């Protein structure tokens, strides 16, 4: 009986915690969107955050993009080769990359490299009373910290997605040429013919939403951090888990909205 009581207590507590942080994140996002009117005065901080999100994750984005393209090309190409249809590899690759893999892989890279660092940075500021100091100076932490990060990720995730798609396609071309004997010109022509406007704008829109989600979750987890280094670690871990889940869930609903019946 005691075991069930504890189980109910812990489940209820966890549920309340989840509702609390979800509500806090939504309110934080709305407040950050409101403060976007002050974006010009925070342009230096926005560019700094764009540099961190874009340039600093450039190498990891490049490597992941190339290898994702190569893996996709190889896996699908082997199957297509069985039916002598390997020349279609370009169509499949660009469709997969623009519709799903580009935004999703970029989202995952940004969560791991930028979102976690963002949560750790803001969490450390919270536990070392820097956020309290800002409030005492009548400086809104949302305007000062959250809004620039939100704008930076909303801009940089789509840009990184385009880069990941482009590089993934190149990676696919390398495998198509060396392993599947598909000449570059055929691959290139198939890719160009298969690019669809809808797939492109849905992919970019998806990555724009992912950027907003990652920034909002990272900042809210950071701002909720307590208990010193332990709390910062917990905030970082929660950021990665929650952002990853939200990117998958929201990604599905966006796909369903644009492509579902």
């Amino acid at each position, binding site marked *: 009986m005691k075991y069930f009581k504890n189980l109910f207590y812990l489940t209820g507590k966890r549920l309340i915690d989840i509702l609390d942080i979800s509500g806090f994140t939504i309110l934080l996002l709305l407040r950050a969107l409101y403060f976007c009117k002050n974006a010009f005065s925070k342009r230096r901080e926005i560019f700094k955050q764009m540099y961190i999100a874009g340039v600093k994750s450039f190498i990891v984005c490049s490597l992941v993009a190339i290898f994702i393209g190569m893996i996709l090309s190889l896996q699908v190409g082997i199957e297509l080769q069985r039916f002598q249809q390997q020349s279609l590899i370009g169509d499949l690759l660009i469709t997969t990359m623009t519709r799903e893999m580009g935004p999703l892989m970029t989202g995952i890279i940004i969560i791991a490299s930028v979102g976690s660092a963002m949560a750790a940075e803001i969490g450390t500021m919270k536990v*070392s009373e820097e956020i309290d100091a800002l409030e005492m100076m009548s*400086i809104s932490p949302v305007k000062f910290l959250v809004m620039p990060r939100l704008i930076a990720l909303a801009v940089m995730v789509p840009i990184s997605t385009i880069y990941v798609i482009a590089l993934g396609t190149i990676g696919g071309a390398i495998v198509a040429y060396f392993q599947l004997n598909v000449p570059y010109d055929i691959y290139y022509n198939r890719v160009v013919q298969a690019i669809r406007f809808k797939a492109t704008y849905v992919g970019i829109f998806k990555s724009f939403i992912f950027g907003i989600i990652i920034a909002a979750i990272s900042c809210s987890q950071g701002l909720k951090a307590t208990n010193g280094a332990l709390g910062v670690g917990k905030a970082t871990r929660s950021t990665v888990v929650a952002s990853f889940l939200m990117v998958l869930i929201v990604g599905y609903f966006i796909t369903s909205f644009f492509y579902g019946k």
Partner: protein
Amino acid sequence: MIELIAIHKSFNGAKILNGVHFKIRKGETFVIIGQSGTGKTVTLRHIAGLTDPDSGEVLIEGVRMNGARNRVKEKLRKKMGIVFQSGALINWMSVRDNISLPLRENKLFSPDEIERITNEKLELLQLKDAADKMPADISGGMKKRASLARVLVINPDIILYDEPTSGLDPVMSEHINELIRRMQKDFDVTSIVVTHDMQSAYHIADRIAMLYRGEIVQCGTPDEIRNTENPIVKQFITGQVTGPIEVA
């Protein structure tokens, strides 16, 4: 000017403040002493509106701080500054940028005027050589002085100090004590100081309050505290190991 009425506060079931009640007059330097973990900093955070009590009221110039809307809190905070124990400097800004931050963000003066005021405070707190250093590259004492400089630039009516002299050498401690006194004498600033340092408390205080187990056990002038008959206060100010205060 500042009044705390029957403040109760618990964290995770542990009672930290148990009916704290005191009134601070305008221009007074009020020192709160007590053991670590008795709720001195929590009391300071209630006055700053950074923590809300479970019950009770915090009044700043007659306006209720706890539970107030953000706009009201912001208005009240424009008149006050807090020197945090750790300094709480923004870690990715230089000392100079930290000090000028409230002026720049709230657009209180022109850029030239901001630079002049910042240089004046850097000079006052002997931080000129550290002006362009990052918080990670300066000592704890320097961080505390930079934090004080950041408060002084806005010319507040109320300054809250959380252990302002801990970690400072005796000369610098004395300099900070003098500064607290001067702020009161020259600008009629109300100061609330949380400290363990009894020398500093006697030097700067108009009144001293001792907090023990979440309650104010005595409040009086430095002379009254020095000559107290209260066994808890007596043990604390003389630093004896035996007595009613249990050493955890």
